[in-house]
């Protein structure tokens, strides 16, 4: 057994008072912030009418609803659902792709490591915020004025509103890129364009691809815009079936969406592998 070092606690305490008796301000900071966050949370629960009894009774109701969902059954509406799913997929794919293509150059302007000047970056960021702040319903109406009712308006509405989100997300991905690789290009005499093309893009494209695919997925699920512009869509069908309490159709539609999303996942995995190599995907 080894000898243990001897420790004189009192003496150490005298030598390092700030370690042993941290000032109240630094000791209390975390608990105070936590308490404040919890207080707002508790206030929210009360203000928003949360009640444990309703929650419990609701849970049993949920259990009952899940029982009603078995087995999933589309009834006679399968062709209708398939068509709606197809429409939704087309709109989501096209709209999201368009948004990504437009957002990429703009996100460069919003990234700190590409445009160091805050004066230039600020308006771009605020523009992106504004676009995100405008409700998708408004974008739908705006595009109906241009191209009329129909799926095309949905594509454009999705493209614009996702443009705002992508601009922000992409610029954050760019800011997180490894600066050393960019420096390597610069040191060999590359121009700013070269730095972006060879130093940044290989790094951020995988991240961007992941985000775009996630948005395609989520647009596939969302009901709002696609229904408003008069293009049907699977989300609308789902909402309708819940409203009329056709639980078996509901579960069938949910399954359809899950399968579609899994399909997108699978295909996108393959595509990403092809584009950026296995390692980056794994």
């Amino acid at each position, binding site marked *: 057994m080894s000898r243990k070092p001897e420790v004189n606690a009192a003496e150490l305490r005298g030598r390092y008072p700030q370690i042993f008796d941290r000032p109240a301000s630094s000791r209390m900071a975390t608990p105070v912030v936590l308490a404040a966050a919890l207080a707002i949370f508790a206030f929210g629960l009360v203000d928003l009418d949360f009640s444990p009894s309703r929650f419990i009774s609701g849970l049993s109701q949920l259990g009952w609803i899940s029982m009603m969902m078995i087995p999933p059954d589309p009834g006679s509406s399968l062709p209708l659902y398939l068509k709606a799913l197809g429409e939704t997929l087309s709109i989501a794919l096209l709209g999201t792709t368009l948004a990504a293509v437009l957002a990429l150059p703009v996100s460069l302007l919003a990234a700190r490591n590409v445009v160091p000047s805050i004066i230039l970056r600020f308006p771009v960021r605020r523009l992106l915020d504004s676009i995100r702040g405008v409700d998708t319903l408004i974008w739908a109406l705006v595009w109906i004025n241009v191209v009329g009712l129909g799926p095309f308006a949905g*594509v454009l509405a999705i493209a614009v509103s996702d443009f705002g989100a992508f601009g922000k997300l992409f610029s954050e991905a760019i800011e997180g890129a490894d600066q050393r690789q960019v420096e390597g290009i610069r040191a060999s005499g590359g121009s700013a364009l070269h730095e972006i093309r060879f130093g940044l893009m290989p790094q951020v494209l995988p991240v961007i691809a992941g985000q775009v695919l996630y948005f395609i997925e989520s647009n596939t699920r*969302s009901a709002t815009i696609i229904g408003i512009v008069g293009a049907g869509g699977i989300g609308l069908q789902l909402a309708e079936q819940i409203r009329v309490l056709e639980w078996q159709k509901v579960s069938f539609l949910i399954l359809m969406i899950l399968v579609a999303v899994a399909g997108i996942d699978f295909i996108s995995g393959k595509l990403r592998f092809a584009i950026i190599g296995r390692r980056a995907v794994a």
Partner: protein
Amino acid sequence: MTIAVSILPEQQLAALNSAYRKAVARKRLRLLAALAVFLAALIMSSIGAEVNLRTFFTYFGNFVSYFDRILTLDSGQRVWTNVGEWFWGLHKWLKLLGETLLISYVGTLLGAVLAFALNFFAAENTSPARWLLFTVRRLLEFARTVPGIVFALIFVIAFGLGPMAGVLAIAIHSTGALGKLFSEIVENADMKPVEGIRSTGASWLSCMRFAILPQVSAGYASYALLRFEINVREASVMGFVGAGGIGQELIVAIRKFYYSDVSAILVTVIVTVFLIDITTGWVRGRLFGKEART
């Protein structure tokens, strides 16, 4: 210019080049095939989505017409000529905005806490068992894939009308989305500290608490803040369950063509988005700005 490389003899070069080309060709072929598939999908979609560029360019001028109208008061003047009239409902809107923020806050916090509790099990490098990894991942996938609105509709039937259903729907969806993102951060975390702490005889829980958490908490906060912002907008969709807030008010104004109200509410919302973006940017900077740069 200095000669720094002696060019190889023709023959040797040809051999190397062909080896390179062969290796690259496979990659390039895959890339081209992928692009072709993607393009084909795009073309099919544009047929399905009835894309019509001619209409688009012919009537593009109409793009501003809606904005033109919402920036006009009932009296026919521009909105900024009479700000008092434009923002007549500011008091009410701020209250509704507060409600929206509260819904989003509670929903995001609930979701983030659940996601936090689950994400270590969903990350390849920290999950204690394969079956746990699989189960939790499927669970998160389900929570993420089923649209928020569906949960809201089901919850309104289960829990009754009111913000609770909306908040729970937001919370569930946030759990799914954040759980995946959180676990991705964990998968990118440096495992050396974990090993260091594990080697001292610490339990799994301690390893997560002391080795993983300090590395990932900034990332967690960043994603949770982003989610909060998304949920602020999501909350408007929850209007019909009685959890509308400002979003519901906006939709009513749009549908009833109260033009100047639309722009006034939009401005209120956009200013809020600015503030959230600037604040979250600041918080992110505080949390992990310095480390990220060094």
